[in-house]
């Protein structure tokens, strides 16, 4: 069994059983319960909410991120085990959304975490979330979801950006 077949099987296996971390980081988390429960039931795709980062594969950034949450999100992201994926919901992670001029929210999630997939909608609908998950599955199967490798390679750059955000820019200002 050459390496390609083996990694293909592991990709198909991880595609069919994506475990999502139970962490509502922003206001988009209100559209997760309908997807997780009986009306849309994401478990038929093998997806299940997991309590701890160790067991999770997918980290959902549902909406805006304040600096305080960003610290916890990065801790949780680093605890998750590779291969891990980040999906960003709504307009806030793309370019700041409605809180673009708020002093406490970060505008572009891309500067701090490698994002595998963006999803439009100021609070995407459950159908949108399921579309995004199906898209993520196809990307995993084709091997394009390489966010975690990007994080490993540019680790110092990400860390520098995160530090600047945590200190709210230059301290002496």
């Amino acid at each position: 069994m050459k390496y390609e077949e083996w990694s293909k099987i592991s990709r198909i296996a991880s595609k069919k059983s994506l475990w999502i971390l139970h962490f509502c980081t922003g206001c988009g988390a209100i559209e997760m319960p309908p997807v997780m429960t009986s009306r849309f039931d994401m478990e038929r795709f093998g997806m299940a909410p997991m309590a701890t980062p160790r067991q999770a594969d997918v980290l959902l950034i549902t909406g805006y991120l304040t600096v305080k949450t960003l610290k916890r999100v990065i801790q949780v992201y680093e605890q998750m085990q590779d291969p891990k994926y980040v999906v960003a919901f709504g307009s806030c992670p793309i370019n700041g959304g409605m809180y673009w001029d708020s002093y406490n929210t970060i505008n572009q999630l891309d500067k701090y975490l490698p994002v595998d997939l963006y999803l439009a909608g100021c609070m995407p609908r459950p159908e949108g979330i399921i579309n995004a998950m199906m898209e993520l599955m196809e990307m995993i199967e084709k091997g394009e979801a390489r966010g975690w490798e990007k994080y490993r390679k540019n680790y110092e750059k990400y860390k520098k950006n995160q530090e600047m955000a945590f200190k709210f820019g230059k301290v002496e200002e």
Partner: protein
Amino acid sequence: MKMKEYELFIGPQHPGITGNMMYHLWVDGDTVVKAECNVGYLHRGFEKLMESRTWMQNIPLVCRICVPDPDVNEMAYSMAVERLMGWREEVPERARYIRTVVLELSRIAAYLMGIGSYAGALGIYTLPQWALGDRDYIMDIFEQLTGARIYHIYIWPGGVRWDMPADLPKLIEKTMKYLEKRLKLYDDVFFKNRIFFDRAVDIGVIPKEKAIEWGVTGPNLRASGHEYDVRRLEPYAAYENIDFDVIHYPELGKFDVLSSGGDAYTRMLVRRLEIEQSISIIRQALKKMPSGEHLLKHPNWFKWEVPPGIAYERVESSKGEYGYMVVSDGGKKPVRVHVRGPSYTHGINVAETILKGANIADVSQILFSLDICPPDIER
């Protein structure tokens, strides 16, 4: 032999926490000795943003504060602006009834989510699946009425944005009948369940005499025995000519009173019975709804100046008393908008006092029974 106290973080990433906040517990064996709340994970500085937006631009911003129950914000903000503009009596009658229907539908959706997550904290995963699945039918109603599932941007100062379509009352009536049938099943499976009684009675008690002083409002206050409801104390929308009774501690309808009140058991039953009240309110409102205009004429949105003054309006949300203080100096933008989220007192002072002496297993149950919504606290 005093066990070494160790600290436990019910952190922002934890299924047993309602939303995005953190409790720092000092634990001795199995009981909590001291609890400290750490919030601020969802602080977007709403009030700072509102000061840099005109009166009409604030409406889409305002409804994003409390996520499970968004219409309450739009209503309170719109009432405050109407009060300042002097439109309080001129709001069309039909708009008042549509607002009542929207608020009650939003309350049922928030209660279903509250009951579902509480039952999940107790360990029965059937009820969250049912409750949140049935909540989705109400989201379908909102989508056809307002054009969006969660953030409706539908209640404007002076009325409602669009009129209610003709075929919607039929759909609302059908959904209400469906919900009533489902509520009977919830009672059999959870509310009359022996283990719910074992786990929830006399847990996290808010004593009746201390409840008002701690600033407890809403279902938690009514569960402690006070018969106070903002819809009855300061009627708004169309609540004067709709009769509903305020559920509070001693009268729990068909459920037997098993505790001294103010505990998690009574709080959940008050929420459960208020769903039935909301269903009957919606039916009466739909029956009595007159025809007519649904929105007052707005001045030009770019040059809209609200006369100076300070106004405070309160609305009964599913979490408690939701208040908006709006201060205007006659300019195009509000000088100050201060939001009184009901979970401000429930989440910090009340939770820290009643978590003392609780068992670790009951910490998440108490927090869910208080139905704390963290964006209320830090806006």
